[in-house]
C-alpha cells in the first residue's frame, strides 16, 4: 500500500513543485531555485527508495482512474521503467544545479516559466516511465511534448519560435498521426493495452501487418529520432543548454527509445517479433540511422548541432539493440539508455559551460580552450570517450553488451555498423578534444575568461564522475535489465 501511494507521489511531487515555483515567481528567485532543488531531491529520494524493492521483484501498481471500459490511467513500475525514472530523477538534481548557474550566468529572461515547464516535463517523464498501458504512456508522452515547447522556444525570437514549431509539429504529427492509430489498432485486435510480459499481439495479428504496425509504433514515437523523423532534434538545439542537456540528451529522447523498447518487449513480445519476418526491417533502419547520423555529425561546425546528430546516432544504438531481439542485446538497450545519458549530459553541460564563460558555440573557436577551462574540457573529454566507448567509461559497458548481442544474433551488418560508427565517433570527437588541449588559441577571445560559474562546474563534474563510475558500478542496472528480459 505504501508503495502504491509512492507511485502517485512521484507524479504529484513535480506538479506541486511547479505550482510552488509559480508562486515564488520572479520576485523571489532564491526561494524559487530552492524549491526546484528541494523538489528534485525529494523526487529522487522517492524514486530511489523504490529501487531496491523493484530489484527485489516488487512491481507496485497504482490505479488512477478508468477512462473507458478496459482502459484506465494506471501505473506500474517494471524494471526498465524503474531504471528510466531513477536516471531522470537523479539527473534532474544535477541539471537543476546547472540550470541555476546557466540561467543566472546568462541573465536569461522568463526564468520562472523555465523552471515551471521543466518541472512539468519531469512530471511527464515520470508518467511515461511508470505507465502500465499504452494509453497512459501516450498521455504522458504528449504532456512531455507540450511542456517542452516553451523551453525550446525560450529565446522568443523568430528563429527559435520557428525551430520550436518544427519540434512541436514533428512530434505531435507523428504521435497523433501514427502512434495513436497504432494504439487503437492494437486495442481493436487485442482488446487490451496493458504492457504484458511476453507481449499481447501474438495470435492476434499476422503477416505483413506486423511490420506495418511496428512501423506505425516506431515512427510514431518521433522522440526516438529514427530517420527520417529526426529533424526536430537539431531544431531543438536553439533551446538554452540545460534544456538540451536534460531533455534532449536524457528525458525526451530517452522517453522515445524507452517507449520503443517497451513496445518491442511488452506489446509485441521478443519471441513473437523474432518469428515474424516482416518486423526485421527495424534493424536496418537503425543501422542506416547510426551510420548516416554519424556522417552528418562529422560535417557539423556548431558544437551543439554536432552533439544533436551524435545523439540521433546513439539513440539508434538503443533501437538497434532492441531490434536485435536477443536477451543480451535488450540488456544493452537498457544499459545504453543510462550510459548515453551520463555521457551526453556531460557533453551538453560542457557546451553550455563554454558558452556561458566565453559565448563560443563553433568548433573552430575551441582551440586551446582546455587551458582556460580545464574542468569543463576534462569533463568533455570523459563524455567524448564514453560516446566512442573507450574504457573506463560508461559507453564501453553498453557497447560491449551490444556487440555480444549482435554476435548472438549473428547479425554481421549490425556488428559492422557498430564498428564503423565507433570509428566515426572517434573521428569527430577526438579532434575537438585534441585541439582544445594541445592547439594554441588562434585568436585572443573577446572576453578574457576562466572557468564557468561554480554551479556549472560542480554539475558537469558530477556527471563526468557518474560516467566513469558507471563503468565500475553497473550491477544494479544490469540486474534490472536482466529482469526485464527474464534471464536471471
Amino acid at each position: 500500500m505504501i508503495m502504491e501511494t509512492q507511485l502517485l507521489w512521484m507524479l504529484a511531487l513535480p506538479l506541486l513543485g511547479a505550482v510552488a515555483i509559480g508562486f515564488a515567481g520572479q520576485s523571489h528567485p532564491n526561494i524559487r531555485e530552492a524549491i526546484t532543488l528541494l523538489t528534485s531531491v525529494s523526487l529522487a529520494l522517492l524514486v530511489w527508495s523504490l529501487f531496491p524493492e523493484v530489484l527485489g521483484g516488487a512491481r507496485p501498481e497504482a490505479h488512477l482512474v478508468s477512462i473507458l471500459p478496459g482502459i484506465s490511467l494506471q501505473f506500474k513500475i517494471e524494471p526498465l521503467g524503474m531504471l528510466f525514472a531513477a536516471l531522470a530523477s537523479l539527473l534532474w538534481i544535477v541539471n537543476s544545479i546547472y540550470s541555476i548557474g546557466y540561467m543566472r550566468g546568462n541573465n536569461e529572461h522568463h526564468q520562472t516559466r523555465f523552471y515551471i515547464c521543466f518541472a512539468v516535463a519531469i512530471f511527464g517523464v515520470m508518467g511515461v516511465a511508470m505507465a502500465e498501458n499504452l494509453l497512459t504512456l501516450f498521455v504522458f508522452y504528449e504532456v512531455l511534448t507540450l511542456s517542452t515547447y516553451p523551453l525550446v522556444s525560450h529565446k522568443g525570437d523568430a528563429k527559435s519560435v520557428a525551430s520550436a514549431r518544427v519540434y512541436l509539429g514533428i512530434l505531435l504529427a507523428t504521435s497523433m498521426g501514427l502512434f495513436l492509430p497504432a494504439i487503437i489498432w492494437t486495442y481493436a485486435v487485442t482488446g487490451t493495452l496493458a504492457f504484458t510480459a511476453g507481449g499481447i499481439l501474438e495470435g492476434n495479428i499476422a503477416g505483413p501487418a506486423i511490420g506495418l504496425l511496428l512501423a506505425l509504433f516506431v515512427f510514431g514515437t518521433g522522440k526516438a529520432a529514427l530517420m527520417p523523423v529526426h529533424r526536430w532534434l537539431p531544431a531543438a538545439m536553439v533551446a538554452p543548454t540545460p534544456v538540451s542537456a536534460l531533455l534532449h540528451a536524457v528525458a525526451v529522447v530517452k522517453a522515445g527509445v524507452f517507449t520503443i523498447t517497451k513496445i518491442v518487449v511488452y506489446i509485441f513480445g521478443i519471441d513473437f517479433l523474432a518469428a515474424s519476418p516482416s518486423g526485421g526491417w527495424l534493424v536496418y533502419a537503425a543501422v542506416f540511422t547510426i551510420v548516416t547520423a554519424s556522417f552528418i555529425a562529422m560535417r557539423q561546425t556548431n558544437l551543439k548541432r554536432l552533439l544533436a546528430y551524435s545523439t540521433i546516432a546513439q539513440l539508434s544504438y538503443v533501437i538497434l539493440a532492441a531490434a536485435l531481439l536477443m536477451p543480451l542485446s535488450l540488456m544493452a538497450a537498457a544499459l545504453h539508455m543510462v550510459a548515453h545519458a551520463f555521457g551526453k549530459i556531460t557533453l551538453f553541460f560542457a557546451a553550455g559551460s563554454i558558452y556561458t564563460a566565453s559565448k563560443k558555440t563553433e568548433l573552430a573557436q575551441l582551440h586551446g580552450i582546455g587551458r582556460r577551462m580545464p574542468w569543463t574540457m576534462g569533463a568533455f573529454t570523459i563524455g567524448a570517450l564514453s560516446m566512442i566507448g573507450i574504457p573506463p567509461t560508461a559507453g564501453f559497458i553498453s557497447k560491449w553488451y551490444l556487440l555480444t548481442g549482435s554476435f548472438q544474433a549473428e547479425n554481421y551488418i549490425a556488428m559492422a555498423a557498430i564498428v564503423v560508427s565507433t570509428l566515426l565517433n572517434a573521428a569527430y570527437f577526438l579532434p575537438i578534444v585534441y585541439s582544445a588541449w594541445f592547439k594554441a588559441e588562434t585568436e585572443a577571445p573577446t572576453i578574457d575568461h576562466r572557468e564557468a560559474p561554480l554551479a556549472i562546474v560542480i554539475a558537469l563534474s558530477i556527471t563526468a564522475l557518474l560516467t566513469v563510475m558507471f563503468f565500475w558500478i553497473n550491477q544494479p542496472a544490469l540486474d534490472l535489465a536482466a529482469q526485464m528480459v527474464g534471464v536471471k
Partner: protein
Amino acid sequence: MIASHWPALQVALPLLVAPMVMLLRGATLPWLAALVTSFMAFAIAISMASTVLEGEVIVYAVGSWPAPVGIELRIDELSALLLLIVTGASSTTLLAARNSLTAELEPERHMLFYAAWLLALSGMLGILVAGDAFNIFVFMEIASLASYVLISAGSDRRALPSVFKYLIMGTIGATFYLIGVGLIYMMTGTLNLADMESRLAEVEELKPIMVAAGFITVGLALKAALFPLHAWLPNCYTYAPHIATAFLAACSTKIALYVLLRFDFVVFQGNLIGHDVQFSGFLMPLALIAILVASGVALFETNLKRLLAYSSIAQLGYIWLGASFVSKAGLTASVVHMFNHALAKGTLFIAVACLGLRFASLTLQDLKGAARFMPWTMAAFVLAGMSLVGVPGTAGFISKWYLISAALEQGYQGVVVIAVILISSLMAVAYLWRVVEAAYFGEALTSSSSTTAEKMSEAPPLMLAVVWVAALANVYFGLDSTVPLALSEQAATALMEHLR
C-alpha cells in the same frame, strides 16, 4: 404529482416567463429571472433524465388526449440527453451573461435580450419533447426567430446582414422541412412520428415519401449547417454578442441534427428500402469534406470567434459522420459527441466572452500576450481546447475513441475515415495552437488603442468561476463518462431498433 407534468412544464416554464421578463427593468432583474427559470428547466431535465436512465420512456398526452388524436410529448434517451445539453448550456452561459452583456448592450434593453433567450430556450426544448412533426416545426420557428434576435442584439452592426442571411437560409430550411412533412401527411394522414412509422408500412406508393425524405434531410441539413450549407454560420457566430454565441454554439445546430436523426431512423429507415445506403452515401462524403475543409479554413482564420465557428462546422461533421455509419457504435459516437462538443465549444466560447470583456477586437493579432493578463481564462481555454482536440482525459477523447472504434467496424472504408479523423485532429491542434502561441508567447502590442493598461485584468470572478466549472466538466466527463455514454448507447440502441 407535479412530476408527471414535467414534460409540459419543461417547455411551458420558459415560454411563460419570457413575456414576464419583458416587464422587468434594469440589467439585474431580467437576468435573475431568466437565470432562475433556466436552472429550473435544468432541474426538470435532470429529473426526467434520471427517469429515462432507468429504461422508461416518458410519454405525456397533452390535455389527456391520447395520440394520435391529441398531441403527444415523448422523452426517450436521445431527447433526455439533448434536454440536458440545452438546459445545461443555457444555465451555465446565463450565469456569465450579465457581466458579458453589460459591455455590449445598454441596460435598458437587457430585458428584450433575456426574453428572446427564454423563447429560444423554450423553442429548443419544445422540439426535443415534441412527439409529432408539426409541433417540431412550430417550436423550430420559435427557436429560430428568437435566435435571430439574440444574434443581432449586440452592438456590432455587421451582425445584421449576417442574421438576415441566416433568416433567409433558416426559412428555406424550415420550408423544406414543412414540405416534407406535408408530403408525408398526405400519404399517411398523421403527424405523430411513431404513428407515421407504423402507417408508412401500409403505404404502397413510396415515391412521395422519398421526396419527403429528400426535402427533410436537406432542410434540416441547412439548419444544422452541414457542409456545403454552412455559409450562414460563421458570420452569425462571429458578430453575435459573445454570450449568445456561447449558448447557440453549444446547442442550436445540434437540435436540427436531432430532428433529422429522429425522422430518418424512426420514420424512413425501416420503411424505405435501401434508404440506409442512401443516407450514409449522402452524408458520409459531406461529413468528411466538412471536417477537412472547415478545419482547413480554421487554420488560416485570424478572428478567434470565426476560427471557433469553423471548428464547430468541422466538429458537426464528426457528429454527422458517426450517424452516417448507420450502426449502433456510430450512433453512440455521434450522440455522445453532441454532448462532448457542447461541453468543449461552450467552454471555449465562454472563455471568448471573458476575453471579449477586455479586448475590443478578437483577432489573434490583438490577443497577443493575453495570457499574461488573463492567465485563468486562457488556462480554461487551453483545457477546453484539449477536449476539442480529443486529448485523453478530456471529454473529447471519449467521442473520438468511440468514433474511431465505430469506423474500424466499417472495413476498408473505415481506414479512410480514420485517416480523415486523425488528420483533422492534427489540424485542430494546429489551429488551436495558433491561439495558444499568440496568447502565451506573443508580445503584447504596446500602442493598441483598445488595450489600455488599467483595462488589462482578469475577467470578473463570476465569469471566471463559470468558465472554470465548464472547463473542469470537460475533464470530469473525460474521466467518468458513465451518464452521457449510457444515455447515448441506449439512444443508439433505440434508434437502431427501428431498422428491423
